[in-house]
């Protein structure tokens, strides 16, 4: 496969590199850039483990062609902690919202976009927001609690 130049913003810093045509964004981030936070689950768009934020919207990085992010802003879970862990990460730990942890980076991305857009979500809003992310350990309840707790904490702060 031919390589093409790609310039984009990853978690606030500009990156200029090359990506093979046809390579998906997940593989590109993990192997090309070394950001291991987005996870490979199904490669079919079913599980949401590879969820990243592109220009403020959640996208499945396994179904995104890497060369299409030219000039765009990409956020991953590894960009959440800034000196100290992000309030969502704190709440996930507090509420035991991770068991094996494989779905967690994707869950965090979906939760972040939800709270950025809707600071006071209902339980139903949270369920809808993470409906594209599968978790096979927790039964979802601790994750929903953690996201609602983060929203509540922010309102009190």
């Amino acid at each position, binding site marked *: *496969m*031919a390589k093409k130049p790609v310039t984009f913003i990853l978690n606030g810093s500009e990156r200029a590199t090359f990506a093979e*045509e*046809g390579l*998906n964004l997940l593989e590109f981030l993990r192997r090309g850039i070394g950001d291991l936070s987005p996870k490979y689950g199904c*490669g*079919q*768009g079913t599980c*949401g483990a590879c*969820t990243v934020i592109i220009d403020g*919207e*959640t*996208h*499945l990085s*396994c*179904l*995104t*062609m890497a*060369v*299409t992010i030219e000039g765009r802003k990409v956020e991953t879970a590894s960009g959440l902690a800034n000196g100290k862990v992000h309030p969502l990460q704190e709440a996930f730990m507090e509420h035991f919202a991770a068991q094996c942890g494989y779905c967690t980076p994707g869950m965090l991305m*979906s939760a972040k*976009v939800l709270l950025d857009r809707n600071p006071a979500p209902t339980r139903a809003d949270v*369920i*809808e*927001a*993470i*409906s*594209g*992310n599968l978790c096979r350990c927790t039964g979802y309840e601790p994750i929903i609690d953690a996201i609602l707790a983060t929203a509540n904490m922010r309102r009190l702060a």
Partner: protein
Amino acid sequence: MRVESYATLAEAARAMGPDAVFMAGGTLVMRDVNAGTSASRIVRSADPVLTEIRSTGDGVSIGAGVTMAQALANRDLAYLSSVARSVGGPQVRNMATIGGNIFAHHPYGDFAVALLALGARVVLAGQGAAKPLEDVLRERGRSSTSPIIAAIEVPRPRDPRAFAFAKVSRIKPKGVSVMSIAAHLPREGGRIRGARITFGAMGPTPLRATAAERVLEGQGLDAATIARAAQLACDGLDPPTDALASAWYRREVAGTHLKRLLEKMERG
């Protein structure tokens, strides 16, 4: 594999061939790329017509590259919001396009089921007049070169209560469809005129349930008419057996789901 990008849809249409596939949102094409089973050339285009949404008197012309999320955010497409919301999770809705849905094989392709019930017409890149969606679905996969869809013209129901959609799924809140059903039942003087009932996952493409349509034509939605339509729901359909349900199960339950949808429409 090679990726080709063209400024205009006309150029992209000329570049299509038996060895090429057109990629919009990527939710279908990238699955094949990841599995190593995609066509050897992937054709793309950033033509702005793909993302236009235009009101046209009695309907809306939707660019084929409009995503489910963009459709949900557009007031002119409010009558399709329950359909767009039923597709995927948020990530898929941010990526999957209306045009791509027409090429989706079941258990995907719920949006096309609604478009078929509304009598949508499809504008193909580099071709003149719009074609009925029915024809495009019938030809899907039959010719060696797949067409590129530029836009979909969707009539707006005069009475919003004349249109209804249901997706039957085993998983809450989101799962792929065991089947999906759309009904457009415009009334004249209380009688249904131009009934259209469509099913997804009940054949190789979204299909019209013509026997049920004939039962409803000229009638109101009384209990006896609904029961007769439900009885004939599967007439002429060819449901598949897959990991979600057997053909037998789909035949058993299709009538019941159609009955519930029609009863809900009648209750308003």
